[in-house]
């Protein structure tokens, strides 16, 4: 293999590309050619490194120097000073609170994270299967199919306590066992990559940065439950993730790690991509199954559950991207290794997409049970100068808010529901005092009204009526009875909707009513928006536009 003295890892996640990463890479290549360094410097496009706000990012090894916000004009200086003379360009290093952090490991944002799911993201080239293998990739699949029985695999996953990372937190091992017990020649594994929550992009980053880990997880699931075929259901809005998945599947097939008789055993498993057209409801498992079958993306009645009667009427396991990316680590290192992280009932880590009014936005992976305070202040660098933390929205449009008095809540599957919110898939939107909580609730409700498929009445009509009431309140026409009406309607929708979309849609309203009722009352009684966001009776406000951008 070729020896390079420098590995320059350029983040090629969608955010960094959007920030102009391509232009920088081209300029860098041009400069390297000029200085005749192409044989010495290996440029690698990696997946998302996490700190998206400071992109485009580049990490230069062997030193591990991290450059932020690199522009094409910077390429010349980096090549001449760093690559040629070994002097890192100081002005481009990571700066925080007037301190400079020369290497990746010094930066608190990275040092305080625990990476299991994102173990390879930003380190390997996602378009090269050999780099994944070098990091121990496909070892777990090999171990499972050559040294373990199907029952062993299920037992390890059960013992690990892994819970579905899509939001509901259903024990993955139990789901596999239920599918394993089904008597059928044909079974399917589906990877749910239909990530739709506003502001959430954990799954996309895993698929862009480490697609093989998901393929490996699916193959192991296939072996355990006795499936021969898997589908990845991914949104068409993720072109880069689709491209990298296609490359990964092709390479895995060529290497004999997918397809017939994997590694010379009797086990055969293949994976196919299915693109969704961007309907939020298709992230719901039964609607997703309909969509794969070519039908209209509407949820089905449960039971029968997908493990009994799923895609094409056959037993089907549906797991989220992040769940599957955990599987290879659990199989290779064992259940007890996985249990070292997180809490007793919520082991492992969770990736959060940190967004909104926080200094460093991006992807963070922390052990479950980490406090919200640690995530926002220690890793995210706190709230921008001059503002104060007001609330955090978890679970996107299906979740609720966590107010400042609960900043120390451990983020896990037990504690969040007690506060009236949910873990969700990992969206974490931070809000400061400039956000109006009624307006935030209205924003999320508007999203679910738009995305409701219309099949069941409570969701189709009920959410629309709730939105009407919120419109009334935010324009200064609300009455105190409206608050009771909102609560009653919300609780009925939760109980009577057909699928998860409707069952969780009232959460943002109910949760803001619980913690920020005074803001609702100010809108109604004083005809005043405490955060100056809602324009009461046509009153204009310049800050409105600014604040809308957050939500």
């Amino acid at each position, binding site marked *: 293999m*070729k*020896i390079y003295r*420098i590995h320059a*890892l350029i983040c090629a996640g969608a955010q960094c590309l959007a920030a102009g990463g391509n232009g920088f890479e081209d300029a860098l290549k041009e400069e390297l050619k000029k200085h005749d360094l192409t044989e010495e410097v290996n440029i690698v496009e990696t997946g998302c490194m996490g700190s998206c706000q400071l992109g485009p990012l580049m990490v230069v090894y062997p030193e591990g120097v991290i450059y932020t916000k690199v522009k094409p004009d910077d390429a010349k200086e980096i090549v001449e000073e760093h690559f040629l003379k*070994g002097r890192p360009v100081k002005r481009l290093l990571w700066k925080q609170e007037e301190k400079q952090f020369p290497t990746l490991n010094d930066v608190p944002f990275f040092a305080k994270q625990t990476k299991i799911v994102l173990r390879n993201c930003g380190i390997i080239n996602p378009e090269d299967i050999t780099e994944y293998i070098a990091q121990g990739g496909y070892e777990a699949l090999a171990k499972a199919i050559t040294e373990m029985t199907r029952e062993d695999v299920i037992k390890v996953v059960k013992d690990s306590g892994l819970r579905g990372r899509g939001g509901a937190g259903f024990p993955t091992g139990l789901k596999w066992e239920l599918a394993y017990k089904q008597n059928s020649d044909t079974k399917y594994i589906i990877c749910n990559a239909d990530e739709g929550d506003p502001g959430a992009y954990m799954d996309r980053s895993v698929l862009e940065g480490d697609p093989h880990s998901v393929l490996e997880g699916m193959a192991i699931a296939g072996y355990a439950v006795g499936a021969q075929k898997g589908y990845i259901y991914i949104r068409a809005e993720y072109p880069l993730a689709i491209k990298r998945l296609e490359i990964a599947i092709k390479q895995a097939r060529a290497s*004999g790690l997918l397809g017939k008789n994997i590694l*010379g055993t009797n086990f055969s498993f293949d994976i196919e991509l299915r693109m969704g057209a961007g309907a939020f409801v298709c992230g719901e498992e039964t609607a997703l199954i309909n969509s794969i079958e070519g039908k209209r993306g509407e949820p089905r009645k449960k039971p029968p559950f997908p493990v009994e009667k799923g895609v094409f009427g056959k037993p089907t396991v549906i797991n989220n991207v992040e769940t599957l990316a955990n599987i290879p680590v659990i199989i290779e290192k064992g259940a007890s290794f996985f249990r070292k992280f997180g809490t007793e009932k919520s082991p492992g880590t969770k990736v959060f997409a940190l967004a909104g009014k926080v200094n460093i936005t991006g992807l963070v992976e922390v052990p479950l049970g980490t406090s919200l305070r640690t995530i926002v202040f220690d890793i995210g660098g706190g709230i921008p100068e001059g503002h104060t933390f007001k609330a955090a929205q978890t679970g996107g449009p299906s979740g609720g808010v966590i107010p400042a008095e609960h900043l120390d809540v451990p983020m896990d599957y037990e504690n969040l529901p007690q506060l009236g919110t949910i873990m969700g898939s990992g969206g974490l939107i931070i809000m400061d005092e400039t956000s109006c909580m009624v307006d935030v609730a209205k924003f999320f409700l508007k999203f679910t009204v738009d995305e409701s498929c219309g099949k069941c009445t409570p969701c189709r009509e009920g959410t629309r009526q709730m939105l009407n009431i919120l419109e009334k309140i935010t324009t200064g026409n609300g009455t105190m009875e409206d608050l009771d009406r909102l609560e009653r309607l919300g609780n009925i929708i939760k109980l009577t909707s057909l699928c998860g979309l409707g069952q969780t849609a009232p959460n943002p309203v109910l949760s803001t009513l619980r913690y920020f009722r005074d803001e609702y009352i100010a809108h109604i009684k004083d005809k005043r928006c405490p955060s100056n966001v809602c324009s009461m009776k046509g009153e204009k406000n310049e800050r409105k536009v600014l604040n809308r951008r957050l939500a």
Partner: protein
Amino acid sequence: MDKIKSIEELRKLREQAQAFLKTRQGEAKVKVYISMGTVGIAAGARDVLLAILDELQKRNFTDVQIIERGSMGLDVEEPVVAVERDGIRVYYGHVTPEMAREIVASHVINGQIVSDWVIAKE
């Protein structure tokens, strides 16, 4: 790419590929430091660097990091190359591309210090 037919073949491929990623993990058996200050470059450090890379490539030795540094102040001895192996760092002075090749062959790869050219140890 050829099909991987057994777990042994997978592990073999992994070992080969791992060496390639060593540079990225910040850990390697041997570290080679080259002074690339203005004096070093004027004295021919660049050619020495290229010779080291070429020799490593020829001998297919990947468990090594090559790190450029600024001048250490001993300009009279430039180009200076330091090799760190088994916890000892050895400095060589007035290194030519030919000397560099021999340093790679005997010290970097086989651990035999070329004592005639050593100017300092730490």
